[in-house]
């Protein structure tokens, strides 16, 4: 199998600052990819759950850009998961929900309620807590 070498160190050789930069890229690729996709889908004719309709939708430039951004998201996320734990990465990507709400406010004119502010604060508090833990605690190979 290609490049099937085990990790010898229990801890990632990648620095924390690299991890947070890649995490930022993962969150941005996902939020912008989804936004572009959602924007493009609004401009294609309504469709049923039919594969041909989906393929036709890809001709829309916003849908195409959205798909490219989501491929970048996938690759960045794979690299990130090779550096850090799933239980580390997952809560931190929760920041993406805040971005989605902000984009919803900017582009769709959705109002921001007090509950949204509290939710945002909770997400930031949670990510700060998770972000302060050790990013790699398992190699997933044996025990």
């Amino acid at each position: 199998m290609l490049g099937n070498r085990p990790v010898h160190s229990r801890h990632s050789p990648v620095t924390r600052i690299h991890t947070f930069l890649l995490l930022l890229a993962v969150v941005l690729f996902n939020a912008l990819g989804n936004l572009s996709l959602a924007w493009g889908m609004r401009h294609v004719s309504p469709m049923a759950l039919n594969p041909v309709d989906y393929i036709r939708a890809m001709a829309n430039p916003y849908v195409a850009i959205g798909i490219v951004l989501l491929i970048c998201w996938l690759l960045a996320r794979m690299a990130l998961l090779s550096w850090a734990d799933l239980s580390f990465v997952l809560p931190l990507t929760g920041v993406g929900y805040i971005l989605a709400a902000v984009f919803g406010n900017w582009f769709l004119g959705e109002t921001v309620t007090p509950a949204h502010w509290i939710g945002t604060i909770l997400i930031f508090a949670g990510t700060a807590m998770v972000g302060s833990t050790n990013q790699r605690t398992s190699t997933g190979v044996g025990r």
Partner: protein
Amino acid sequence: MKWLLLFVIVVATVLADMLQSYEMKRSGAQRVDARGVARLLRMIVSRRYLLLSIFCMAVSFFAFMALLQIAPLSFAVPASASTFILETLLARFVLHERVGKRRAAGAILVFSGVLLLAR
């Protein structure tokens, strides 16, 4: 139908993330320059678990789109965010990650925040 779609989303998302994390842990730290990206692309086609993971992501994505057609975003987003908690548990017991109090509490805070944000 709503709950069936949610079930499909949760199972597919959890499987996708667990398989992806497992395979990427085994591969060692990957680079993110041009050669690293080319290697990641090659890995996708050569590793069964990664392929299966991407298939599960696609299933989850289309099930989510279908769910949005019959349920509001304020149901779909927080309900599918329940995978945060499920995956943190599975990361502890299946992937053997060390999930201490701080990480567990952080995951619960993020999940609570998502619940409020989707209202």
